């Protein structure tokens, strides 16, 4: 990705390699802070609000715990495994604990330390996303251990392959801000975990009332806010590409929200707030791989499609196959991420100042680009699935099983595991 960044910067900003640009630095720092906000505030409230009140605090703790563990794993070894020199699949160990990197080093026009922090936020949110599929039934310590190992064994190699100089990067995959690396990866890991750990007791029979869709909507709003750092920050500078990514990140989710509301109105004659915010998040996920590549028309199609596919995933697919993807990490993040990652081949503007090296830029062939996109989503999916199974069993082994007891599940994880309640009136 570093190469890409440089080439992008060369075009879109006025910075010279090797010199710190204060505007870019300011933008990358605030972007990184925004991405932090997405996890312990945005995702935590979004997820907790959709959980039954007896498990809402545990859900928050799963997300927050995944974040601190995931970010620590990133600094300790994840960054090195993802971004230091290595082979086609994985990076090396030379930057373990950021060894050999100085605070004065630059990544393009801003400090490497900021790049490391920015990427660490991506790693941490990815594993946190996966927690959405398995809330209400997993041991907390198993989850924390899982998160730590998963960052090193699953996330870091994938980040290396797609962004860190690995073979998918060299094939020319277009993934602006992490449709594959973050959303498909996290969403699929969620599904795998949900299948491995089994359904919640009473699933499909009892009404699982969300603690507070209003809280979830606050979470969604914070996610949206943070996503500007996520997507426009992925331009790695305060430049015109960032501006494009910014605008599509505002427009696509708005369209996606409207789409979901219309679908609900058609199917159920009723518009819900949960529907509106599900649409927003689906739109955000869908635009992620495409944010800096498409124009308003592309953003419109991405917004529309992301909502439709996620709606279908949540309403139909999940019912059909009967897995308990509790908060729809798979249904929303994987499916909309997949859609966005594939659609970008057809929707990317043919503008060589925007396009990354790859088939579309080289030959103008959208089909060839689609082939590369397809390859990368397939490879990422296979690797994620296998890796997640492996890490699950390791974490499970260490902690004597991954699932809480039936009593604990019935009492609710908040009180049974943490001895706390989401609200005491």
């Amino acid at each position: 990705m570093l190469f890409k960044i440089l080439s992008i910067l060369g075009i879109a900003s006025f910075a010279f390699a090797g010199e710190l640009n204060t505007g870019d630095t300011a933008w990358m720092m605030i972007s990184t802070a925004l991405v932090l906000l997405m996890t312990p505030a945005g995702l935590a409230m979004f997820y907790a609000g959709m959980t039954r009140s007896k498990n809402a605090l545990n859900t928050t703790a799963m997300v927050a715990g995944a974040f601190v563990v995931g970010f620590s794993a990133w600094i300790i070894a994840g960054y090195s495994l993802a971004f230091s020199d290595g082979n086609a699949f994985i990076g090396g160990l030379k930057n373990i604990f950021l060894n050999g990197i100085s605070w004065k080093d630059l990544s393009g026009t801003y400090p490497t330390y900021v790049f490391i922090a920015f990427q660490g936020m991506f790693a941490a949110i990815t594993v946190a996303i996966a927690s959405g599929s398995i809330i209400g039934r997993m041991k907390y310590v198993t989850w924390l251990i899982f998160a730590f190992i998963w960052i090193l064994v699953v996330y870091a190699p994938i980040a290396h392959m797609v962004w860190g100089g690995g073979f998918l990067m060299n094939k020319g995959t277009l993934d602006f801000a992490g449709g594959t690396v973050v959303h498909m990866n996290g969403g699929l890991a969620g599904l795998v975990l949900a299948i491995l750990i089994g359904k919640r007791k009473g699933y499909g029979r009892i009404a699982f009332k969300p603690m507070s869709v209003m809280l979830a909507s606050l979470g969604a709003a914070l996610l949206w806010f943070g996503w500007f750092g996520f997507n426009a920050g992925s331009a790695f500078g305060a430049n015109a590409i960032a501006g494009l990514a910014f605008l599509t990140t505002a427009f696509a989710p708005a369209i996606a929200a409207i789409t979901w509301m219309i679908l609900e109105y058609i199917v159920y004659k009723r518009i819900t707030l949960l529907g509106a915010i599900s649409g927003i998040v689906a739109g955000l996920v869908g635009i992620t791989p495409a944010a800096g590549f498409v124009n308003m028309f592309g953003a419109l199609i991405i917004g529309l499609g992301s909502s439709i596919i996620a709606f279908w995933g949540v309403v139909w697919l999940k019912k059909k196959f009967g897995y308990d993807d509790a908060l729809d990490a798979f249904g929303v993040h994987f499916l909309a991420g997949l859609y966005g990652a594939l659609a970008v081949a057809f929707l990317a503007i043919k503008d060589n100042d925007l396009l990354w090296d790859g088939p579309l830029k080289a030959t103008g062939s959208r089909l060839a680009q689609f082939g590369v996109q397809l390859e990368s989503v397939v490879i990422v999916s296979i690797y994620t699935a296998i890796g997640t199974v492996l890490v699950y069993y390791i974490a499970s082994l260490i902690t004597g099983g991954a699932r809480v007891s039936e009593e604990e599940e019935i009492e609710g994880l908040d009180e049974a595991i943490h001895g706390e309640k989401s609200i005491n009136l």
Partner: protein
Amino acid sequence: MKKIEAIIKPFKLDEVKEALIESDITGITVNEVKGHGRQQGHTELYRGAEYVVDFLPKVKLEIFVNDEFVDKTVEIILENARTGKIGDGKIFISHVEEAIRIRTGERGHDAV
């Protein structure tokens, strides 16, 4: 001495309360409950899962009165809690043996 328990629709609480107080029936204890009866609950959606909410929010009034006040109390509730639609609720009356006012220790008739 009787205990009158009335399960009514929540939005009728204010009217009932005001009518009771006007008639000097001022000792009232109110309880938020959920009720199941003939009234059908609405459906709720949750990410594509539709389910019927079969317990509806109701308010239960508990009013302890001396025997001579029973009829008046019942009448006031009937008048003010009625909408004529299913789900208006019910009144139950039962016997109470003793009443004691904690503050003063008074017992029986005066304590109610």
